[in-house]
């Protein structure tokens, strides 16, 4: 329920800030995901898409036509997320996955309008594994985020916190501490230990209250320090799934009293029991789902070079707040017939956010190069060649040339294969 309300709040926030128009209507070009190029903004209908998403979120929260709403929420939210790479956020991915699980699991069985309207749908107990699946998902997010921190930049150089913290030195009371590198080390190590261990402390009955207090403190702190939007609140709510049913019932009872509603009528306990075939199908599906979840973040091992530099296999892996990466890229378009070269003003084609995101991500540069090729071909440039002159800095290293400026990107195809035209990093980050 809280999950639904939170997504609703996200949608409203997104809308209210004018981001729908800024991010999905105004740009002339979008960065779709490889293989999912058909997913793109729907022009003015994009507002409708957001409305559907918000409505589904509300229905999920109320538990009204729960199953349909959960499926709708998963599809609409995922579609929105996949429209443009430049808005990629790990917590959107988490919301998508959680929505997928909710669409499959019987979360509408208790305390929902469906269950009230159709008593046959009401169940007081659901199989334990359905809840454990959600706990496992949250656990994976934390542990993988923690594993991703086990690298030399994070632990030994305290990067990027060492850059980010002094920028917050004007906070009242504690701000001055952020000027000292020692603070960045403490935060880095604490963050890594926290991510790696907190799911286990949440699982344990004795440590759970303290662990949850830590969850709240940790995420409130990150919300104050970093521009990460709804993520802290998503995780604070998601971690509630670790509490047992009795705790949630007490919470519900308290909410009822607060709203001056009568206490829930006492009904005989009734357990949800799946037919064996359905149960097998669900369990197999979940097993496959989690196997994928466990493996996908490690796909970067298939790529030969530094992950942070090439970003091959970086997304969808719970790598959160790991890099201070900034870049600048200029494109040159050459007419193959005349040899005449011109430089592109990226801001003529892209939003500020798109420009910033593209400047550090090679797959986006390639997509934009292909867009420029087609754009200039339509304007009479003969077989346009597109060259990128890019410069990127990573975690406090001085910037360096990023893309081979002699490679015609117009003729490079996108694929999952390593991109040889990314120039070498010339440094090493050790660790996972």
């Amino acid at each position: 329920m809280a999950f639904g309300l939170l997504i609703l709040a996200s949608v409203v926030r997104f809308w209210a800030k004018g981001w729908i128009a800024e991010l999905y209507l105004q740009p002339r070009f979008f960065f779709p995901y490889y293989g999912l190029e058909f997913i793109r903004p729907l022009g003015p209908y994009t507002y409708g898409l957001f409305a559907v998403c918000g409505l589904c979120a509300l229905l999920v929260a109320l538990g009204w036509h729960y199953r349909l709403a959960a499926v709708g929420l998963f599809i609409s939210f995922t579609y929105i997320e996949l429209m443009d790479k430049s808005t990629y956020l790990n917590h959107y991915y988490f919301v998508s996955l959680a929505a997928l699980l909710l669409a499959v699991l019987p979360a509408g069985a208790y305390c929902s309008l469906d269950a009230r309207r159709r008593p046959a749908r009401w169940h007081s107990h659901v199989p334990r594994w359905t809840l454990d699946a959600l706990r496992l998902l949250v656990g994976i997010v934390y542990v993988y985020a923690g594993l991703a921190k086990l690298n030399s930049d994070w632990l030994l150089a305290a990067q990027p916190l060492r850059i980010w913290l002094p920028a917050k030195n004007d906070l009242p009371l504690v701000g001055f501490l952020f000027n000292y590198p020692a603070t960045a080390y403490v935060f880095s190590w604490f963050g890594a230990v926290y991510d790696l261990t907190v799911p286990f402390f949440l699982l344990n009955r004795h440590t759970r209250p303290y662990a949850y207090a830590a969850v709240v403190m940790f995420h409130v702190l990150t919300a104050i320090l970093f521009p990460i939007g709804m993520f802290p609140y998503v995780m604070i709510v998601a971690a509630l799934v670790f509490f047992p049913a009795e705790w949630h019932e007490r919470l519900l009872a308290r909410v009822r009293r607060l709203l001056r509603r009568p206490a829930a009528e006492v009904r005989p306990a009734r357990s949800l029991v799946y037919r064996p075939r359905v149960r097998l199908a669900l369990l197999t599906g979940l097993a496959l789902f989690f196997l994928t979840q466990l493996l996908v973040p490690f796909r970067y091992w298939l790529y030969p070079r530094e992950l942070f530099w090439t970003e091959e296999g970086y997304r969808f892996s719970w790598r959160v707040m790991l890099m201070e990466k900034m870049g600048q890229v200029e494109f040159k378009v050459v007419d193959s017939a005349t040899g005449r070269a011109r430089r592109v003003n990226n801001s003529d084609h892209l939003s500020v956010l798109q420009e910033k995101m593209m400047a550090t991500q090679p797959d986006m540069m390639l997509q934009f190069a292909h867009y420029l090729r087609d754009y200039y071909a339509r304007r009479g440039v003969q077989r346009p060649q597109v060259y990128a002159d890019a410069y990127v800095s990573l975690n406090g290293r001085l910037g360096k040339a990023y893309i081979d400026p002699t490679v015609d990107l117009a003729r490079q195809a996108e694929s999952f294969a390593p991109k040889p035209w990314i120039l070498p990093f010339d440094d090493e980050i050790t660790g996972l």
Partner: protein
Amino acid sequence: MKKSILLFSLSVLLAAGGISGCKDVLEEPVASTGTSDLDRKALLTQWADTLVRPGYQRAGTKLTALKSQTATFTAAPTVASLQAVRLAWREAYVEWQKVEMFEFGPAADVSLVNHFNIYPTDVAGIRQNIASGSYNFELATAIPQQGFPALDFLLNGVAADDNAIVQSYLASANQRRYLTDVVGKMDQLMTGVQTQWNGAYRTTFINNTGTNAGSSLSLLVNAFSRYYEHFLRTGKIGIPAGVMSGTAAPEKIEAYYHRGTLPVQLAQTAHAAVQTAFNGRSGQPSLKAYVTALGAKDSRTGQSLAQLITDQFVVSAAQLATLGPDLYATMQARPAAAVQAYGEMQKAVRLIKVDMTSAMSVSVTYVDNDGD
């Protein structure tokens, strides 16, 4: 059992953290000795009180002089009064170069650069405005029909020589009025911006000490790097040198109708102003001191970022100087030299826009971001 393993690994990790942390803190006391240089309010106050407000003050004075010379000239156009107003224009134009980069806050609110210095100027549009006697300087189409570039045309290019120019003003009341109105608009906008800075905006500016998008430092750094990249590198050098289009276009230089030594003087003044703004005064808060105090350096070579930026500015300023004395002639005869200067300026752009902005952790957009 599980718990004890966790506790054990926890303590090992914390101990390791402590050791490694201490070692590094002892090795690199940069930030801990220079924390006063990390005081953003002091930096913003320094900018407001030693760069922005005095800069506008001086530019405003030159504009007032230009306004009075314009009045004298339009009241009685002679070659002497034309030369006087031209000199006043030239001095105001040079002074403008020192404040053009401050396009944030009050200046951004009124799009000051759009009203002051967008070139090449639209000669056909200006002639039409003069002929019709009706124009609105707030329209987007009117952007290249006003400001210093329009005055460049009106005072230097409207007729073949000084006598002919004087004759054209004697002959046309509309032209006299247009000249007066262009100067009047500039003076009015500059006065408005100055009033804001001398009033409430200074307080707003120095107290908005964050680093998010919309904070004073973010506005300042973004304006600074955008100015260097777009107005100085691209506008003054790149476009006329043909870097963007593939063909040199000498007629697109700043102060094209005046030509001579002025165009390169304007570019050099602008570049020197950027250097002054970055380096600041010794012992006073500055961008350079701030970047130094952050301890930003090339982790491969150990070179300080602040010093690299200072040094690169020196190199690009030297390259810029080789484009004199007549920028127009240089763009015609040896645009390659201008392309080379552009290349050196591009190196500075990267140091500012990528390395400095990254080291300062200044946001450029409001949109959420979970770590690049």
